[in-house]
């Protein structure tokens, strides 16, 4: 039971990280009709920049600095590339973001090398014990921070004019334009929000015991099954999907280590994703309309 609670806790922590990344995917997809395959690399950039700034600045400034850099990168990609290709069809957009992903990955390796670095999390390796269950501080920080970010996001979407304008844009682009909502600015805004979420996710994805390494973008891609399971245009779906994937991975690693070569937990989210698609081709919470993207 203790093991289960411990694993469950860590699964939720990891799941929240995936939820943040998945939300980024969903917000971009809803806000600007694109699926940004380079989002995993945005997460990697976030982690590397925090790590690079940490020795020179207080942690929170390093974090803010990383947000500035990553948001700038996202806006650059969105403005120079995506906006021009939007009406060129799905294949073009998909391939373009894959191209960007390749470029950013190469740049990261040029700047920081192929080696493994330290952790980039806000808290160290401490633990606390609650009723016999040992909880890592990094996990607690992850959950607390993610919940705060989710709440802020909720307030943003429900209570602010920009949030409303984003939702209106996602709902009906031409009608949004007719209300005087600047669609281009909304595209940029959705990419910027996704980039902020990527940085938040990145510091927890690189929290103890995990570290910053070139494969972090690939780890971030595990949010893709979360996106599909939840439904590509559903914010709630992204959170639920993220939690499912996080729990599967951690519980799977704990309980299925003796089966299937001990790596079953890595592949289970993808299997589940296919199963969900068979039963519900638009994910658990998605709507049909998204296929037009």
């Amino acid at each position: 039971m203790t093991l289960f609670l411990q694993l469950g806790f860590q699964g939720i922590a990891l799941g929240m990280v995936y939820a943040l990344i998945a939300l980024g995917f969903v917000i971009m997809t809803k806000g600007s009709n694109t699926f940004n395959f380079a989002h995993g690399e945005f997460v990697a950039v976030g982690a590397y920049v925090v790590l690079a700034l940490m020795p020179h600045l207080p942690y929170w400034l390093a974090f803010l600095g990383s947000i500035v850099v990553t948001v700038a990168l996202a806006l650059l990609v969105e403005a120079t590339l995506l906006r021009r290709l939007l009406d060129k069809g799905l294949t073009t957009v998909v391939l373009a973001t894959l191209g960007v992903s390749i470029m950013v990955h190469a740049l990261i390796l040029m700047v920081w090398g192929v080696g493994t670095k330290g952790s980039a999390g806000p808290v160290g390796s401490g633990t606390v014990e609650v009723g016999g269950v040992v909880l890592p501080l990094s996990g607690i920080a992850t959950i607390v921070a993610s919940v705060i970010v989710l709440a802020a996001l909720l307030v943003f979407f429900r209570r602010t004019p920009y949030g409303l304008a984003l939702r209106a844009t996602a709902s009906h682009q031409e009608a949004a334009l007719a209300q005087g909502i600047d669609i281009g600015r909304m595209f940029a805004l959705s990419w910027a929000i996704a980039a902020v979420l990527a940085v938040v996710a990145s510091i927890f994805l690189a929290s103890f015991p995990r570290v910053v390494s070139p494969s972090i973008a690939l780890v971030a891609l595990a949010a893709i099954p979360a996106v599909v399971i939840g439904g590509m245009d559903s914010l709630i779906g992204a959170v639920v999907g993220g939690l499912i994937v996080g729990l599967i991975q951690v519980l799977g690693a704990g309980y299925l280590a003796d089966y299937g070569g001990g790596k079953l937990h890595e592949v289970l989210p993808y299997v589940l994703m296919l199963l969900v698609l068979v039963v519900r081709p638009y994910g658990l919470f998605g709507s049909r309309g998204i296929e037009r993207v």
Partner: protein
Amino acid sequence: MTTTVSAPPTGSAPQPEVAPARRRRVRAGTIGLVAWLLGMVLVPWLGISDLWMGVGIFAIIAAVGALGIQVIMGFTGQISLGHSAFMAIGAYSSAWLGVEQEQPFWVWLPAAALVAGLAGALFAPIAVRIRGLYLAVGTIALVFIGAYVWETWTTVSGGAGGRLAAPVEINGQDLLDGYWSGGTQVMTLFQAWWYFAFAVLLVVMVLTWNIRRSRLGRSMLAVRDRDLAAGVVGIPVTQTKTVAFAISSAFAGVSGALLTAYMGYFTPGQWSLMLSIDFIAMVVIGGLGTITGAVLGAFFFRAVPEVVNWLSAYLPGISQDAKVDGGVTAPLLSQFVYGLLIVVILIFEPRGLNQLCRKPFRWIQQRREGAR
């Protein structure tokens, strides 16, 4: 924007005198084809270095897989990022037949097509249910599930260390040793493999050409252009997509089998998402929906990394191997240029190299017509 891949415009701009213009275009096409065939036959004797011959062989093999992607994406309008998984299936089934069962290539090569094609047909029921973005993203699962299977199923894959590939033996000679006759080498390994791969490519090209012109091909285009509406006008959408997936996967299987046979040895790690992306880049950048586009794209994207590698020797500040702590290295630079080229070509000529290459010819033709 629609689910389907937008139809690439075919042919040149409408012209007033249709019949003569068309004849001229056909003639130009035939001349181009003959010239290309002749060139491909002659290349091994032009004294090209082994390095570039190798690149060429990789390109020919990639073109086979690219034609598979052309069938599913270019003709049928379904994005699949799972191509590398089907290549792997072709590779492992051919290696098992060719090595463990000691079958000749004319058994294992068609078998690779068959097994991969069947796998594609098995996946099709899922694929036909999902559309657009969901399909593009969903097919990623195949790559990751495949990677897991290859790494875990060590009796077939040899585990992370890899395994031997099926040999291509003609008259009892392994082509990887070149081709010998009476104690003298008639062809080097590169010359022999060039012809072997080229022969397979020709077969696949002819198959693709026939598919494109058949009733099936027309159904595929109808599915691509109208998807939902196609069902209304009596085109069996599900069946067409299923067949397209099977054919596409079969070509992928052949490409995977050839690729590993040429390399002689292969590991589970090489069937990555990046490999799938490669093939999508080839057909989109080459030109969606055309055979020429697929072949052009394959040669382009196999050549680019080598060209950058070769150029980087002349650029200052670029080291030749990977470094733990950063720095611009030749492989990284070629990776970056690869991504950059995709992006730049998409921005400036979204219809691909096929159209780009035709521009000068069209310009010349227009000038000639103007002069007359």
